[in-house]
C-alpha cells in the first residue's frame, strides 16, 4: 500500500542537502568578511561607512586609509639601549598618534628600568620608575612594545582570525572581528597587547584624524589593540611617531629588504639582541648597542 502513496515533490534527503548548501553559501559569500579578504571595491565602501560613522561620533572629519603593503618592503625596528634615557617621550607620542585611551589609561609602549649590574633581566625590571631626572645612575632603559614577530604566537591562537601578519611584516588586528577573548594577550610573551575594558576615553580635541583601518582608527569597547609600527604613517613612507620624537635618537626604523637602510647597517655592524630569543618568536624588533 505504501508504495502507492504519491512521493513528495522533494525528498527529505534532497531538502536537507539543499538547505546545507544554501547555509554554507550564505555564510561564505554573503556573510561578513574580514576586511582584508573583501574585494577592493567593497572595502572602499566599508571604509567610507567607517569614516562617516567616526566623523559624526567625534564631530570632526576623520579619514580612514586602506593603504596596502608596499611591494619589496619588510619593516623592522631597532632600539639603541646605550642611548635610551628612559624619558618616556615615545610613550606619550604613541598615545597621541594612535588614539589610545587616556581614561582609563592605555599605553602601547612600556619603558622598563633595569639595573646595569643585572643586565637585560626582565624579572628585575621596573616600569613605574619616577625619579626627578633620567637617566638615573646605574640604570638603563628598555622600551617594550609589540615585537612584530615573524613566528607570532598571538596570531596562532586567535579563534576568529581577527589578527594576522601583513606581507610587510606588521602584525595587525581587525577590530570588527575581535571578539575580546584575550587569548592573544595570554599568548604574547612581551605583554604587548592591551584590552579596552571600556570605550576609550579621548578628549575630542586630541583625536588624531589621520587613521588606518588596521591601525589607529577609533576602537570600540571590548577589543584588543597594540603597536602597528604606526601603519598609517609608515605605509606613506614616514617614520613612526616614536622614532621622530626620541630626543636621544635611540629609535631606528627601516626596510629590512633594502641593503642601504639604517636597519641593515645596524644588524651588520652592531651588537644586536632580541628579547626572549629562546621562545623562537623571531621578533622584527631589535635592540642594539651602538657603542
Amino acid at each position: 500500500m505504501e508504495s502507492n502513496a504519491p512521493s513528495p515533490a522533494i525528498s527529505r534527503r534532497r531538502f536537507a542537502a539543499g538547505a546545507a548548501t544554501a547555509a554554507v553559501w550564505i555564510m561564505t559569500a554573503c556573510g561578513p568578511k574580514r576586511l582584508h579578504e573583501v574585494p577592493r571595491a567593497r572595502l572602499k565602501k566599508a571604509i567610507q561607512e567607517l569614516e562617516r560613522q567616526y566623523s559624526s561620533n567625534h564631530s570632526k572629519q576623520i579619514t580612514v586609509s586602506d593603504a596596502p603593503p608596499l611591494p619589496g618592503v619588510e619593516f623592522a625596528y631597532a632600539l639603541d639601549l646605550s642611548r635610551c634615557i628612559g624619558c618616556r617621550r615615545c610613550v606619550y607620542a604613541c598615545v597621541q598618534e594612535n588614539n589610545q585611551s587616556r581614561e582609563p589609561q592605555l599605553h602601547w609602549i612600556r619603558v622598563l628600568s633595569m639595573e646595569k649590574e643585572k643586565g637585560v633581566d626582565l624579572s628585575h625590571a621596573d616600569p613605574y620608575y619616577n625619579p626627578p631626572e633620567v637617566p638615573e645612575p646605574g640604570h638603563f632603559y628598555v622600551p617594550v612594545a609589540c615585537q612584530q614577530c615573524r613566528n607570532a604566537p598571538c596570531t596562532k591562537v586567535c579563534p576568529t582570525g581577527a589578527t594576522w601578519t601583513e606581507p610587510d611584516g606588521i602584525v595587525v588586528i581587525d577590530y570588527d572581528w575581535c571578539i575580546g577573548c584575550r587569548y592573544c594577550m595570554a599568548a604574547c610573551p612581551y605583554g604587548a597587547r592591551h584590552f579596552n575594558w571600556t570605550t576609550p576615553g579621548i578628549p575630542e580635541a586630541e583625536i588624531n584624524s589621520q587613521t588606518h583601518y588596521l591601525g589607529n582608527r577609533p576602537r570600540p569597547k571590548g577589543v584588543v589593540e597594540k603597536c602597528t609600527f604606526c601603519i598609517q604613517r609608515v605605509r606613506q613612507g614616514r617614520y613612526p611617531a616614536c622614532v621622530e620624537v626620541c630626543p636621544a635618537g635611540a629609535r631606528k626604523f627601516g626596510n629590512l629588504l633594502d641593503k642601504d637602510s639604517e636597519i641593515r647597517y645596524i644588524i651588520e655592524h652592531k651588537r644586536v639582541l632580541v628579547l626572549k630569543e629562546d621562545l623562537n618568536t623571531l621578533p622584527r624588533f631589535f635592540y642594539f648597542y651602538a657603542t
Partner: protein
Amino acid sequence: MKWATLAALGALVTFAGVAADPPSRPAQKSQEHLEVPPPPFTEGLFPCTGCHAGMPVNRTRRKLTEMHDDIVLKHDEGHRWCLDCHDPTDRDSLHLASGEKVSFEESYLLCGQCHGEKLRDWRAGVHGRRTGSWSGAKRYLLCAHCHNPHQPRFRAIAPKPAPERPSRVSP
C-alpha cells in the same frame, strides 16, 4: 682537487675584497650634501665678525673674562681652548686640525676628527635623531643640535609621568 683549491682561493679573494671595503662612504667633503637645519647659534652672537672684525687676534691661551665668560668648557678642557676649533683669522668659520676651514654647517667634520666612529654612524643614520622618510629624503641634525660643543655630555631631563598601576575600571 685543483679546481676546489682555485674556487676556495677565489672565494677568499672575494671575501677579502668585501671585508676591506669601509662600512660607509669615506669623508668626501666636496661630494657630500647632507640636509641639515641651520646651526644652533646663540641669539645675537653670529656672525662673529660683527665684533671680531677689527679686533687684533690674541693667540695666548687664557681664561676669558670680558666676553664669552658664560661659556664653560667641559670638553677635554685640559688640552683644548677656543682657537683649536674656532678659526683665528676667518672668525665666522671653524677649522680642522689640518688648518682647513669648515663652515658651521659642516661642523660634523670637525667633531669627526676625534669621534670618527660616531661620524660614521651618524652618516649611516644610526647615531642621532633623523626625521623625514624611511624610504626617501631624510633630515639630519648637526652634532651641535643635541650636544653643546662646549659641554657635550647629554643633559639629564625630567621623565614623562609613570604609567598608572592596573586597577579596577568603572564601566
